[in-house]
């Protein structure tokens, strides 16, 4: 059963050896050349499960991967029961919101301290389970790097996701994320990364002068 038709991949909820699973299929995109298409699909299908495993080692909850088919660009993985942080965040009290964002920041910190970049840190890619765990999903654009620039871009995406989807409380939410992040990464490095984020924003097209 198709549960989400994304741009990058489609997600199907299936029964697989008595497990409720997500089948992630990267279908060919007709708009791009077959060479580019094949390259992007197979590359992401390989790197996604690799980084899902690395994230687990870093102590970040992720779905268990059951099967990978590089030729067809399919991944079968555990279905995570819960709600997207995107759906719940705005309905939380400010206390709960802060604590959830702080926890998310801690998880991002763990990823970064292990050299992992999620590549698409949005609140739709974080599932809040009934037990209160936050599971990071969709590592399709993930990568490995410990460079300030790469970490800055990763966090900048998180900030942008708050601004576009949770614009009413974007600033406090991101500040709470950074509170959790600094606990893992440490003050000095975090300060350098924040500086980098400011640089990235200044580079971005036409930031208003007041914000520079």
């Amino acid at each position, binding site marked *: 059963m198709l549960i989400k038709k*994304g*741009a990058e991949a489609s997600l199907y909820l299936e029964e697989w050896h008595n497990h409720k699973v997500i089948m992630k299929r990267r279908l060919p995109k007709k708009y*791009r050349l077959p060479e*580019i298409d094949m390259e992007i699909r197979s590359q992401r299908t390989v790197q996604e499960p690799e980084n899902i495993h690395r994230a687990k080692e870093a102590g970040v909850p992720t779905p268990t991967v059951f099967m990978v088919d590089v030729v067809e660009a399919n991944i079968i993985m555990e279905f995570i029961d819960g709600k997207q942080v995107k759906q719940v965040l705005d309905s939380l009290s400010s206390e709960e919101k802060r604590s959830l964002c702080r926890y998310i920041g801690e998880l991002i910190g763990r990823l970064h301290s292990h050299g992992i970049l999620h590549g698409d840190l949005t609140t739709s890619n974080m599932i809040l389970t009934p037990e209160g765990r936050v599971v990071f999903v969709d590592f399709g654009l993930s990568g490995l790097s410990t460079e300030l620039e790469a970490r800055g*871009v990763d966090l900048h995406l998180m900030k*942008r996701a708050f601004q576009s989807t949770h614009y009413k409380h974007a600033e406090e939410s991101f500040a709470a994320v950074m509170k959790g992040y600094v606990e893992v990464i440490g003050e000095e490095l975090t300060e350098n990364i924040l500086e980098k984020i400011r640089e990235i924003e200044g580079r971005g097209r036409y930031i208003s*002068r007041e914000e520079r």
Partner: protein
Amino acid sequence: MHRSAMSYCLGIESTADDFSVGILSPEGRILANVISAYIPEGGGIHPREAARHHAEVAGRVLAEAFREAKIEREDVNVVAFSQGPGLGPCLRTGATAARALASYLGVPLVGVNHCVAHIEIGKLVTGAIDPVALYVSGGNTIVSAFEAKKYRVFGETLDIAVGNCLDVFAREAGLRQGEGMPFGAMVEKLASDGETLISLPYTVKGMDLSFSGLLTAAVQSLHEGKHRVEDVCFSLQETAFSMLTEVTERALAHTEKPEVLLTGGVAANKRLQSMLSEIAKEHEAKFCVVPKEYALDNGAMIAWTGILAYRHNMTVPVEKSFVRLRWRLDEVYVPWVEG
């Protein structure tokens, strides 16, 4: 001052290399849209040189717009100008002309955001109502959609604009642009004779894009001399446009908007159009491409957005009408759109 109900808005555009004046009726009839482009002798746009061009042609372009619209100066009851974002000297030249005209006519002045104007004129001329907009030009690369009184930015370039990437590459390849044949069109023409795909860096970070690495790699493979220029153009276009289309599709899947609107100078590219119409079809959205005259920087878009803003009393006193070089699309309050 009493004015008759039937009066017009004149818009002045001068953010970069074009100086343009448009005149529209309140219901959105385009009476005039005169554009004068500054073409540099060589290299990119020199802001002061472009501004000098604007100052030189301003009088003539204004007079021509009035002639084209077949109206008198007194028929104009609002003057709008592009207040930003853009190149300082260019913006100031347009703003000066707008202030002078508004003061002379004794009519209100409206400062318009250039990026908002691109989307609004696109909606007017294509009939799109609530699109995901891909705005691609020499200075901007933005994927946007309307949500809660603002055009939200869903994705944008982290470094250079895609149009800039194509322009710089074209200059590196020794091409020279002329009237009616901009760099983008030349790259497109060469690309149509390309056969072999060269692997170039494809950089999508979430919803955001980066073109600087792609540009460097394309220039390098050109200078290595192992590839035909046609093949490099072809590979550059295929890679850059695949990136743009992927990000636009993500915004479309996320927002579930009913339309895709393609605008800006790069919108004229047929290959980009075909890629975007493909994803629009897949998501059952209508694909709307803005005709060249209104996709390039133009005064009509400023006049039209001026009308929309004026209806909500968003005028600006002359003494506060300073230009805003880095005025972001998502900073603008847009009360005239429902939703």
